[in-house]
């Protein structure tokens, strides 16, 4: 009798069916066997495959059912237990021992009580509070300093509070009191030379008396001459700031300004002044001094004060440098080499001063730009006059600037936020924000779940309700989640917190201002792609969607309960 070889579907399909039955959940395996027993009835390869696909779908469904039901069973009972088959619906008890739940929760609390974590949570709450803008009056650290100042009129404390105040009258009163008590704080007048700092529409320059006091205190500072020139260039501060920049057609106002002897004299004084100081170091010392003496280690204070500090107008400097360059070109054309050398020397001197004393990256950038421009032209002029020693000194300075040139010097400037370093800060900010929100949501859930579980641990299963069921689920998961969020928050913020705390220590010279500013602003920044999550519109959409989904879910459950469907 001839034998026919089995078709592939006859060969492999029973093996697959047997495998399906083997991994079928035990409590409904009979149905798996029923499905597999029908397989020989399928005659063609197509019907066999269709039958097997149906079997796989059934298997998946049974596994999902099995997994869901296993969540509701008491610890230690299996699906096949007779007791489990008849357990009341809400009888679930937590699978994790109570001691473990409490230990995990205590660990989370310990992490959350760490000063760095408390600090970052406070910063997040400032950032996402309903109060719009940056308002130091709302910060607990500032409130504390204000309280201390009621009994202790320490000049340093008053100076810092004047920089933190948003009320112009209060700012001036506090800084006056501080300067009267300690004249070495007169530089406050420069920091408050354009108020209010955060509103460009209604700003006014400092009074003549204050300006005179400031100039008398520090007469050789080029920055104060720049301030005088600035008040002439932008009286009401409504003109576009780039009006003096080269290659833009000059308006009649700009021409008038260039021809204004007062402005030219102030700028000349600034460019030839013996030193250049925008009082950033004094500001940093003030923050460190008050933080350490009054035990208020809040990076947000440093971030606010340093971000709001008075900066010189880069376009004013660039504009005057361009005026000088134009002047030298005409002097050279007229063959007045000595005058040309004097003008380039003025530019070079100023660039060297900024390079030496300027603290901001943009100041260093500008110093190199103006300095290189002047040095490149000055060296051949010296050569032509036979002053080769001076020419070689200038060439040495030029090479030094070129060697020190950092193409990423502006990486901390927010306009360049797409650069990699800024992005890494922003991603840290995102992790901190997400972990912070997770902790804020999960910790209360953990406490409520633990409270219910402990309070009703002796309640018999038949008397347990939905609250017990959900509390037991939360008690199993929330302590782990809160611990994970707390650890993530601590680990992510810790490197930045270390930078901030090192910066706020008195006498520290290792941490730069820009590093501190970047580290301190980490909790407040988000990557460009997810920046929308800080938008109130997004919050509204998110909450409305979540409530909508909940409503649909409950309606669906109500309909299901009112009708049996088969």
């Amino acid at each position: 009798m001839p034998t026919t070889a089995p078709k592939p579907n006859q060969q492999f399909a029973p093996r697959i069916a047997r495998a399906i039955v083997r991994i079928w959940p035990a409590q409904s395996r009979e149905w798996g066997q029923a499905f597999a027993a029908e397989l020989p009835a399928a005659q063609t390869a197509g019907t066999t495959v269709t039958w097997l696909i149906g079997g796989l779908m059934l298997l998946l469904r049974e596994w999902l059912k099995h997994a869901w039901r296993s969540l509701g069973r008491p610890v230690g009972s299996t699906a096949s237990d007779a007791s489990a088959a008849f357990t009341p619906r809400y009888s679930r008890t937590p699978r994790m021992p109570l001691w473990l739940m409490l230990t995990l929760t205590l660990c989370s609390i310990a992490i959350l009580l760490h000063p760095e974590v408390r600090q970052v949570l406070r910063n997040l709450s400032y950032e996402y509070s309903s109060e719009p803008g940056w308002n130091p009056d709302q910060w607990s650290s500032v409130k504390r300093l204000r309280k201390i100042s009621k009994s202790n009129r320490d000049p340093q404390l008053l100076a810092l509070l004047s920089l933190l105040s948003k009320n112009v009258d209060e700012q001036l009163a506090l800084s006056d009191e501080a300067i009267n008590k300690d004249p070495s704080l007169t530089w406050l007048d420069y920091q408050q030379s354009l108020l209010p700092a955060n509103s460009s529409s209604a700003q006014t320059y400092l009074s003549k008396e204050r300006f005179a006091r400031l100039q008398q205190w520090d007469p050789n500072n080029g920055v104060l001459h720049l301030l005088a020139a600035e008040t002439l260039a932008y009286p009401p501060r409504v003109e576009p700031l780039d009006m003096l920049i080269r290659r833009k057609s000059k308006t009649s106002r700009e021409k008038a300004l260039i021809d204004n002897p007062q402005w030219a004299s102030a700028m000349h004084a600034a460019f030839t002044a013996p030193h250049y100081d925008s009082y950033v170091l004094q500001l940093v010392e003030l923050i460190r001094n008050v933080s350490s003496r009054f035990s208020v280690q809040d990076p947000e204070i440093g971030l606010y004060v340093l971000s709001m500090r008075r900066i010189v107008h880069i376009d004013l400097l660039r504009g005057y440098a361009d005026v000088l360059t134009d002047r030298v070109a005409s002097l050279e054309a007229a063959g007045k080499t000595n005058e040309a050398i004097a003008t380039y020397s003025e530019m070079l001197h100023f660039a060297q001063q900024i390079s030496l004393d300027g603290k901001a990256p943009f100041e260093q950038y500008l110093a190199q730009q103006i300095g290189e421009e002047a040095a490149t032209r000055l060296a051949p002029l010296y050569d032509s006059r036979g002053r080769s020693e001076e020419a070689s000194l200038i060439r040495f300075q030029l090479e030094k600037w070129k060697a020190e040139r950092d193409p990423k010097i502006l990486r901390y400037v927010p306009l360049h936020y797409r650069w990699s370093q800024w992005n890494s800060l922003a991603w840290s900010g995102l992790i901190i924000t997400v972990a912070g929100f997770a902790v804020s949501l999960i910790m209360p859930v953990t406490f409520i779940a633990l409270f219910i579980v402990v309070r009703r641990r002796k309640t018999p299963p038949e008397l347990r309700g939905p609250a017990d069921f959900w509390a037991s689920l939360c008690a199993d998961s929330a302590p782990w989640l809160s611990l994970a969020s707390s650890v993530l928050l601590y680990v992510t913020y810790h490197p930045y917190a270390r930078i901030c705390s090192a910066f706020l220590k008195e006498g520290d010279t290792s941490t730069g201002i820009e590093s501190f500013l970047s580290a301190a602003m980490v909790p407040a920044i988000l990557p460009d792609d997810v920046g929308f999550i800080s938008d109130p519109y997004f919050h509204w959409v998110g909450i409305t969607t979540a409530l909508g989904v909940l409503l649909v879910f409950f309606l669906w459950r109500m309909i299901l309960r009112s009708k049996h469907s088969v």
Partner: protein
Amino acid sequence: MNMGRRIRISPQTLSLLEALLHKPTAWHHGYALSQQTNLASGTLYPILMRLEKLRWLETSWEQPGTAAGRPPRHLYRLTSEARTWAREELADAQKRKFWKPALNNA
């Protein structure tokens, strides 16, 4: 048993009830029911499982050795109470034009 109250039944379940009522006292097996109702195994078995859970369906295994070369099959038929109820449901669904019979002698 929920025979006393009206329940909502899907057209697929109605087709299966029709097939089971085709020979009401006879035992049916899954593949034949699938052929009669045009339901895929992934749809057919969950309905059979639910009917069995509601105790409207009797189940049994074929005696070993009934057919050589293949495993015993699982067999199904409606309980006597369920048959009456199923006929009412089919008639009602037909009256509401919710469902049309596929077999002539339902």
